[in-house]
């Protein structure tokens, strides 16, 4: 009997967690656009603007699909994040986080970029190809410090389970106080992971016409908008779980994730963008250095 209740509980969580992630992600997208508007002394979009955009994109009358891989690529891109979401514990719901752990999660976080590369590859648009090659180079750039940070955090807690890490932090002290260097490197990596300025070279609207998104119309673009909202959510919840002690209550949790996601968003409108090779250079220099010194302290 207990097994049946636990199975239904997990199934309910697998449904609920992506929904919560999507709603939080939409609010984050709104926040991103509002911050941009306020920094530029504008009013900014109305509250439901992200919803309007997605409904409109999905209700286009004509669509151009460039083939099966183009369709599947977008599904893979969104699905990668949905899979990542159910590995991230939130207050009251663990999903399959205690079975997955952070190593599975860091693999899942690579899937969206690869899915997008598949989809864009079939569009055969030169701008898209340039964009996706830049995006994959950028992924290589931020994944090295990210993996070092993950390795350091796992070494410190002697565990790869996010649930265990959060319990430890809530019992003792937040990770940001115990490993400040790793937390700083993690924040730097977050900026690259979210693909915001100054690490936004693969989108570059004026130069390569939004890169990977160049041939996306209607539903495909809608899928990418959904993906973006998941991306904000996953990046912020991961950081909160690793360094800010997860969420003990919903209020606490939401406050933390919105605070974390607000930092890269505010920074992003203050800088122009780095070129790809400069991005690789800066990502492999400063965050990697900080993370390695941080690991030395931890060990």
């Amino acid at each position: 009997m207990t097994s049946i209740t636990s199975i239904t509980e997990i199934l309910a969580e697998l449904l609920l967690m992506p929904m919560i992630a999507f709603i939080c992600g939409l609010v984050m997208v709104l926040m991103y656009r509002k911050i941009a508007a306020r920094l530029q002394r504008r009013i900014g979009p109305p509250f439901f603007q992200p919803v309007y955009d997605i409904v409109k994109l999905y209700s286009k009358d004509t669509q151009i699909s460039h083939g099966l891989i183009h369709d599947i690529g977008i599904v893979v891109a969104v699905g990668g994040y949905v899979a990542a979401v159910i590995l991230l514990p939130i207050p009251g719901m663990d999903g399959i986080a205690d079975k997955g752990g952070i190593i599975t999660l860091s693999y899942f976080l690579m899937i969206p970029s690869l899915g997008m590369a598949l989809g864009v590859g079939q569009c055969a648009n030169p701008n898209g190809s340039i964009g996706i090659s830049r995006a994959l180079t950028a992924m290589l750039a931020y994944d090295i410090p990210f993996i070092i940070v993950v390795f350091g955090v796992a070494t410190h807690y002697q565990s790869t389970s996010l649930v265990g890490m959060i319990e430890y932090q809530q019992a003792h002290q937040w990770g940001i106080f115990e490993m400040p260097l790793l937390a700083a490197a993690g924040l730097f990596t977050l900026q690259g992971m979210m693909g915001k300025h100054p690490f936004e070279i693969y989108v570059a609207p004026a130069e390569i016409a939004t890169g990977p998104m160049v041939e996306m119309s209607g539903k495909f673009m809608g899928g990418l908008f959904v993906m973006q909202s998941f991306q904000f959510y996953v990046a912020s919840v991961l950081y909160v779980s690793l360094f800010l002690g997860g969420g003990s209550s919903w209020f606490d949790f939401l406050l933390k994730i919105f605070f974390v996601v607000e930092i890269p968003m505010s920074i992003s409108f203050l800088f122009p963008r780095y070129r790809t090779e400069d991005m690789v250079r800066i990502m492999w220099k400063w965050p990697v250095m900080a993370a390695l010194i941080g690991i030395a302290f931890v060990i």
Partner: protein
Amino acid sequence: MNKLENIPVQAKSDKKRTNPLARVFDELIQFCQSRSMFMLHYCTGCGAIELPPAMTSRFDMERLGIQPMVTPRQADILLVTGYVSVKTLKRVLLTYEQMQSPKYVIGICSCTVNGGMYWQSYATAKVLNEYMPVDVYIAGCMPRPEAVIAGLRRLMSNIENGKGDAWKDYYKRYDYYLGNQQHLFGDDWQTPVDVIGEAKFYGLEGEETYGEHTKILEQHQEPLEAQVMRVKL
């Protein structure tokens, strides 16, 4: 993947809709379409100078849900902001045909309405809606940002009331538009987009989709093939 039949997207059919909430969904969709418009500005001529103030902090289009996009695939509105020379018109048409429906065209400045100060020019296409269906004209030389925003609001209310369907006209009366295009560009004019095929696929054919001009097109039409990408070494 060049044949339209192979595209794995369902066309809208005229089947009787059984969902009792169909009307509600339609209204929701129309509302969302009117509140979220991605704009592609084809900045010809001088009207383009009035768009930056309309987009930035003084008038801020984004509060109406209008934001600039950079490729025709993503865009909903095509803004043509000034005189259209014959050479430019070809590019405008290529851009327009690549956009995904529902798509809207706004002609800004007097030059798109009747040629404006270029009325006597031999190289300028005078009336824009002879070559593509135009939803809203914003007259003026040049219209102020207030006028641009008033025009966009007019388009919004048209879409919300279900009147923003000028794009269907391009499929239903393709022969007329193609005739005017051929008059300017010559009989061998052909765009990479197979408009007749799209009209067939999406069920948007009208009586005037075919005619004498489409017959001329069929004689010259080269079959669409994927371009081969080559690197010259």
